[in-house]
């Protein structure tokens, strides 16, 4: 019995170690008065790094631009810290806990950049009073701000994305009536991310009479032989690709190998960036994917970044990646974050750091018209966006872009049909609210305030 004596000791010893760690973590919080802390959850390593890195670079570069060109927001410096989560939910939760209390007013908002992490944080953020900005991802029903007060899927959700894709197919076929009897296969990343569009597509399938074939691909999606065998057997008219990271390029390679016409493959907006197609080049020619309003390219804001950040040697990533699809999306996310801070300052005190709660108000009361966007340098990239306490999405436009073998060529802009999406979101949000005992359809008094 000698060696098995102290069996509980580990329990407590490690707890003590952890307590020591925590004490040192608390001591790190410096008391800088005129700073606004913006946490950055990133993944620069792991299976999704090729897509995660450019977006993270864009997000950080925009903060550097605001600091170096404008001296912050009304004199409040933007501070930030990156935390690597490897696209894993448990690490993402740890990063959230690590960063949420930093800075004089705590974290401004969180952009988890992973649908799985968003689901986990949706349960935590309301208690901590920190908004979640999930531009183009996350929970689709969270566009309903009356239930999801702290979630902001600005500019699009997977439901708006799926809706636009169906609209695009209908247009190519010559009308929604031509969809009847067609077969559309959804190849999806087998995770909440990939499953999100299914309710909308099922609804559309019922409405428009096409058949939906759902084919899951196990993450990370490097092995797809069986999947494409099924595609060959099913012979769908269109394939919708709902992939992320290496799954996208693998799918395109397999499509090439099985001779599935690439111009009948349509990707979601996380399946249409340079890393997904670059290595395949000509083989992916004709493949189209969505992008949130604007794809790749250099406009005023990117040129400013090159001038104020890269020319000073402070760029986060390689210079040639500035202006790529995901980099630009990172800029969009961060611009909306910074504008929310600015809007909150307008109401709660210019030149003062704002709290998460104040930022939440600002996100609900964003009104960026064309003039403001032009001034910010985003005039070409974005259409005006207006949010309200019930509408947490602001705008639901998406553009089709097509790979021509060397670059993404922008195509037509569509707007998702909120007549279909809003009722679905309301009923899903109400169900969520009921299960969480959230007072559903809360009074308008905390709307404008």
């Amino acid at each position: 019995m000698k060696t098995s004596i102290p069996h509980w000791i580990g329990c407590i010893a490690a707890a003590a170690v952890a307590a020591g760690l925590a004490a040192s973590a608390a001591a790190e919080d410096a008391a800088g008065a005129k700073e606004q802390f913006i946490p950055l959850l990133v993944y620069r390593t792991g299976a999704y790094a090729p897509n995660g890195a450019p977006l993270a670079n864009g997000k950080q570069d925009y903060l550097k631009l605001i600091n170096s060109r404008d001296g912050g927001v009304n004199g409040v410096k933007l501070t930030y810290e990156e935390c690597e989560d490897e696209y894993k939910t448990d690490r993402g939760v740890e990063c959230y806990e690590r960063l949420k209390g930093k800075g004089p007013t705590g974290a401004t908002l969180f952009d988890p950049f992973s649908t799985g992490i968003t689901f986990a944080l949706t349960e935590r953020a309301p208690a901590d009073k920190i908004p979640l900005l999930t531009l183009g991802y996350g929970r689709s029903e969270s566009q309903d701000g009356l239930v999801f007060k702290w979630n902001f899927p600005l500019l699009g959700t997977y439901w708006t994305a799926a809706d636009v894709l169906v609209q695009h197919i209908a247009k190519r076929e010559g009308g929604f009536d031509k969809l009847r009897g067609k077969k559309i296969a959804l190849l999806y990343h087998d995770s909440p991310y990939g499953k999100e569009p299914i309710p909308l597509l099922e609804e559309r399938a019922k409405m428009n009479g096409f058949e939906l074939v759902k084919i899951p691909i196990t993450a990370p999606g490097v092995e797809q032989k069986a999947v494409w065998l099924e595609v060959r057997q099913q012979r769908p008219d269109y394939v919708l690709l709902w992939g992320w990271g290496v799954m996208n390029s693998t799918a395109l390679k397999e499509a090439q190998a099985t001779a599935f016409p690439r111009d009948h493959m349509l990707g979601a907006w996380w399946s249409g960036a340079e890393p997904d197609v670059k290595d395949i080049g000509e083989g992916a020619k004709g493949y189209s994917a969505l992008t949130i309003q604007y794809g790749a390219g250099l406009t005023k804001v990117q040129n400013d970044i090159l001038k104020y950040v890269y020319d000073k040697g402070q760029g986060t990533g390689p210079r040639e990646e500035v202006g790529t699809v995901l980099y630009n999306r990172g800029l969009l996310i961060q611009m909306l974050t910074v504008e929310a801070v600015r809007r909150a300052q307008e109401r709660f005190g210019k030149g003062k750091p704002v709290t998460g709660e104040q930022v939440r108000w600002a996100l609900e009361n964003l009104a960026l018209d064309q003039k403001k966007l032009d001034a910010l340098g985003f005039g070409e990239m974005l259409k005006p966006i207006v949010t309200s306490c019930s509408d947490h999405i602001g705008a639901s436009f998406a553009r089709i872009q097509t790979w021509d073998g060397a670059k993404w060529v922008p195509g037509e802009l569509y707007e998702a049909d909120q007549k279909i999406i809003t009722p679905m979101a309301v009923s899903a949000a109400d169900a969520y609210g009921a299960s969480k005992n959230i007072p559903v359809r809360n009074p308008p008094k905390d709307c404008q305030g």
Partner: protein
Amino acid sequence: MLYRENGQFKTSYRADQQLLPITQDRWLMIALIALSFLVVPFVASDYAFRALIVPFLILTIAAIGLNILVGYCGQISLGSAGFMGVGAYVAYNLTVRVPQLNFLVVLLLSGGSAALVGIAFGIPSLRIKGLYLAVATLAAQFFLDWAFSRIPWFTVDSPSGSVSTNLIELFGWSVERPVDKYLLVLGLLCALTLAAKNLTRSHIGRAWMATRDMDVAAEIIGVRPVVAKLSAFAVSSFYAGIAGALWGFVHLGAWEPAAFSVILSLNLLFMIIIGGLGSMIGSFFGAAFFVLLPLLLNRVPGMLGIDLSTTMKSQLEAMIFGGLIVLFLAIEPRGLARLWAIGKEKLRIWPFPH
């Protein structure tokens, strides 16, 4: 000097067989329990509770469960995350479908369901051993993964496959603040550890160990292999089920099937190998090693004031962590628990080497 048992005489069998026969160990244990129940709740930060201590305590429960199966009974299993998933999804279904159930009852039922599933998947162990059994339990892992993401009943028809939990209430105590969660998990861990320790000291534990050491000989001296192996699978899965329910409800709050993937199974197995097979304290060491060390490594450059890029920090974390695993196994293949035991032996005879 201080740690010496000279003069501590046992005058009864009872005294000789108690859990902690050495007086100093008893005092240390009392001090540690007092520390963890009375001091830690007041000094640790929310971050420490939510990101470090609670996950560590929960994974320790799972590691103890797996250690019973692998370390004490010698049946290798790669399906422990699957059994944790059973616990989590059963608990989720119970709280959604029968909301009036007490959470302790929910926990017991999820542990019980996991035990039943564990017995079912443990049946192959009656015929196969070693690596072959590992493959069979791997099949359990994949089957359970598949079931949770493909059968909508488990997620109560959640379209995204992700489920989220409600507030836990226990006899009017709402387990909401991080410190409440900590106390709940700590209490359960201590109770479960005590139960596991005593199980391994009982005739059941001796049957497990006999089966582990040589199953043919065990059978000849009267150990029934069916009972020994399946009871080990049942107890192990019971612990995994409870750990899974806690992982989902107390730690994550919302999860997707990937939360209980084969990676977690492998991590649990590595935890007990590094910590020490067939040792309770080894489960604690292993879980601490896997939960706390990567986060610590990730933060060391920042604490030292070295400005490294996120990528570099993350790569360094992986490299050093991997290196430490190899290092510890090279120094002591029987795990950290063995190092601990050697340390204690040395301390006993200190300052004289013999």
